């Protein structure tokens, strides 16, 4: 019997709001231990939460970007459990009424298949602090800087079928979050976290099998590895006549295995109830529209535009839209040059190639988008030749100087004046008597020789296109009977 997996992901995205979800404490990363702690963060007696407007707007934005319905009437709930990193003894979250519901996104899978994956819900909540355990002294220390930092929990439908699809989905979610600039998407630092729900069933079966929830998956690679292991484990349990029990399992990246953390029977009693400190949050249409107006173009739309409007290849469009900063850069450079294909080529082959070679990040790049656009424009208007452009680009990359300045400094300006070129052409023709004779005798292939000589004589500074025309004219003049 062949089995297929049914996978749904719960993604936690830490938001880049300036202050925490329910107080004015900063969210700055890398501050000293417990420095970002006001009475609300500490859960001091008497402290009360106040909702951060930016958090709501980020949530609306993510909802719109994933084609969700935005709830007009929002309530926050308290989720109770005792743990030292949870100062109030409860987490403020949303339970029965998430801000976003019933959405979907387009995901390009590794095998180029494009699928629509459902989004069940997106809700707002606050993060917990961090416990640091010292096993030698047997003590635990608590850092509450992260406590109260806003999170979005994005829950997918069980629409994913393979570990690779799950990874592609996660990458797409990350890409959208980064386009919206609401989350930096860094899995290693924990600003993007992922739990996976997975079950298996015989192919053809429509009912779901019993699922397990996998936790502690903190990289794209581990998403695939953890799911691969767990799917194989479940199939083998079933094939050996066993049953899957509904439980939470922890992924161990050292061994690449999952192990049971707690079963459904032991599942925590969270005693959810509506937070009486936070009144109903009303979101009206005009608020939603004002948020929509702030949204950038999204990856899928940008990709279609590159292909349909600019005629770029699917491959190049994919690279250019993989990060918002690339498409922003491309768009700027295109605005200067109006030559999408050339900008795309310079960006994806030259700039990315150079960055790669020098092991530099895109942020370290000194070439501005305007300057790259200008470079393309200079080639297109024949101020410089393509060959010159490579030299100019090298200098731009090294120094960040503008192409115009480099051309000036190096005297690279291309000669396009036909009369100036004509002088060089005639000089070259006159100096090469035997070649001229052969040409006039019918060896037309020697035309290229004259062009080459002219280029050489001008140190490559003449426009090849003008040189072509002028040399042809001059050679024609010397044909007998003319």
């Amino acid at each position, binding site marked *: 019997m062949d089995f297929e997996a049914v996978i749904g992901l719960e993604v936690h995205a830490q938001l880049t709001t300036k202050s925490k979800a329910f107080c004015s404490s900063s969210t700055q990363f890398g501050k000293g231990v417990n420095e970002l702690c006001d*009475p609300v963060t*500490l*859960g*001091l*007696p*008497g*402290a*009360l*939460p*106040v*909702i951060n407007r930016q958090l709501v707007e980020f949530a609306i934005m993510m909802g719109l970007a994933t084609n969700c319905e935005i709830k007009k009437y929002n309530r926050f709930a*308290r989720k*109770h459990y*005792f743990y*030292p990193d949870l*100062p*109030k*003894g*409860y987490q403020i979250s949303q339970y029965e009424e998430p801000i976003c519901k019933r959405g979907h996104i387009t995901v390009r899978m590794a095998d180029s298949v494009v699928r629509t994956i459902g989004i069940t819900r997106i809700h707002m909540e606050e993060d917990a602090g961090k416990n640091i355990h010292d096993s030698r002294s047997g003590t*635990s220390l*608590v850092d509450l800087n992260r406590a109260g930092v806003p999170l979005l929990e994005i829950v997918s439908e069980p629409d994913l079928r393979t570990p690779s699809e799950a990874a592609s989905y996660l990458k797409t979610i990350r890409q959208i979050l980064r386009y919206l600039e609401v989350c930096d998407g860094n899995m290693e630092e924990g600003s993007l976290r992922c739990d996976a729900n997975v079950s298996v069933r015989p192919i053809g079966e429509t009912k779901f099998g019993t699922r397990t929830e996998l936790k502690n998956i903190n990289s794209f690679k581990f998403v695939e590895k953890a799911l691969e292991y767990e799917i194989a484990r479940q199939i083998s349990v079933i094939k050996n006549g066993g049953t899957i029990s509904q439980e939470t399992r922890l992924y161990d990246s050292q061994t690449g295995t999952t192990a049971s953390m707690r079963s459904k029977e032991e599942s925590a*009693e*969270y*005693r*959810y*109830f509506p937070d*009486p*400190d*936070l*009144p109903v949050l009303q979101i009206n249409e005009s608020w939603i529209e004002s948020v929509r107006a702030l949204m950038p173009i999204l990856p899928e739309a940008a990709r279609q535009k590159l292909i349909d409007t600019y005629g770029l290849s699917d491959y190049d469009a994919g690279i250019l839209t993989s990060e918002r900063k690339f498409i922003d850069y491309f768009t700027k450079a295109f605005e200067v040059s109006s030559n999408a294909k050339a900008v795309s080529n310079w960006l994806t082959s030259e700039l990315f190639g150079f960055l790669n070679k020098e092991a530099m990040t895109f942020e370290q790049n000194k070439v501005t988008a305007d300057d790259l656009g200008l470079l393309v424009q200079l080639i297109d208007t024949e101020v410089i030749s393509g060959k010159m452009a490579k030299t100019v680009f090298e200098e731009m990359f090294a120094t960040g100087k503008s192409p115009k300045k480099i051309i000036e400094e190096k005297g690279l300006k291309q000669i396009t004046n036909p009369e100036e070129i004509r002088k060089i052409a005639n000089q070259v023709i006159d100096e090469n008597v035997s070649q001229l004779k052969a040409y006039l005798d019918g060896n037309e292939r020697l035309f290229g020789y004259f062009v080459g000589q002219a280029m050489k004589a001008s140190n490559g500074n003449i426009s090849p296109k003008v040189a072509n025309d002028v040399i042809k004219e001059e050679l024609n003049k010397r044909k007998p009977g003319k």
Partner: protein
Amino acid sequence: MTELLHRSLSELRAGLDKGEFSSRELVSTSLDKIEKNKDLNAYITVCRDEALKEAAAAEIEIKKGAGKTRPLLGIPVSIKDLILTKDIKTTCASKMLANFIPPYDATVTKKLKESGAVIVGKTNMDEFAMGSSNENSFFGPVRNPWNKECIPGGSSGGSAAAVAARLTPLSLGSDTGGSIRQPASLSGIVGVKPTYGRVSRYGVIAFASSLDQIGVFANTVEDAALGIQVLSGHDPKDSTSVTEAVPDFVAASKGSISGLRIGIPKEYFIEGLNSEVENCIRESLKVLEKLGAKLVQISLPHTEVALSTYYIIAPAEASSNLARYDGCRYGYRAENPKDLLDQYCRTRAEGFGDEVKRRIMIGSYVLSSGYFDAYYLKAQKVRALVARDFTNAFAKDCDVIACPVSPSTAFKIGEKSSDPLAMYLSDVFTIPASLAGLPGMSVPCGFDSKGLPIGLHLISKPFDEVTLFKTGRCYESASDFMNACPKGF
């Protein structure tokens, strides 16, 4: 000098501003009287040094004429010990917070300080405001100045006793299900709980967030109105506080009640209501009638289920609000815990008193999955019905409601402490207005045969405290009970 403490706030203001007496004289008179009446156990913390320093500073301000804009400048005030006072111990009458010194001021504390009040001490209360007799305090019961063998009411018993015994002319309390109105009634003074949302809860140790409201105790309605004036207003730090405009309560509450329709809810005159209390209330209604008010019989049909509704919602919220007392960051922590679970269990078992634990257990139970719908959700629905009763009555029949505050007068210390259910019944007449978020007031309206005070309960529409004050003021000036003072104080 103790005569000073029998004066109203406006008399004190005038005396201070004219230089008839100084703030330090007034404050030290209050502090000395507090010390002399230690047996009442009205205070958990007395801040003599800080208060005298503040009084000296106030004197300089008074000389500059600041008394005109800061109504409480130089006047001693006491604060219930669940309201945070920066650098002054705030215990909530619990072992859990017995040594807790807050790093910040509650908004109401800030407002009091801005108005110039001198904080002389933190008053005793039922632990975490859970109780109706002030016997549930880690620091021992408070005694009623009218009869020291009796309770002063609760949970704001210390604040009520302090004002009744003329230790301070004004005291802050909190009312969740009746914790201002009931002790005001039992201690023979004025107690006001404003509309939910009128006063910020920021920095007030939470019991039941959707019900808690800060209010005041005073000897006259006018003084109470001034107190509420100082505390009221929107606070961006409390999302449940409202932006509703705050009228000049003192000025607006002058005038007659001629033609005012006073609703008398039949459900409040039931079996279990002490006959002396009932007679006294009926007498006071006649006084109101003589003043030109029209008495209207009304019905609040869901009154009967209000108590049980309250005892689901309040403990549910309490169980959640009190989850933060885990011994990790502040407050009591059990010694030498075996592990984390042991730390939690023993900290909370040792740090909380019986009544608090009882309510945490009730609250945890009603919020558990599987029980949530049957208890909490249903209680919220009933709560809406209770509130609708009032809305209907105010829409059709009356402008203000008059009824008893408490079914009985002050009982003996220890009399009901072994019977939580009997104790819960003390709040049967105050809880409905709490569930509806309405403003309510207790005004002294007589005594029983044992000489224990009785209060008249007035309830008005949301944000219509003015009608409450107006009615109360007319009543007290027509009655013999304004400024009645227990012997020896």
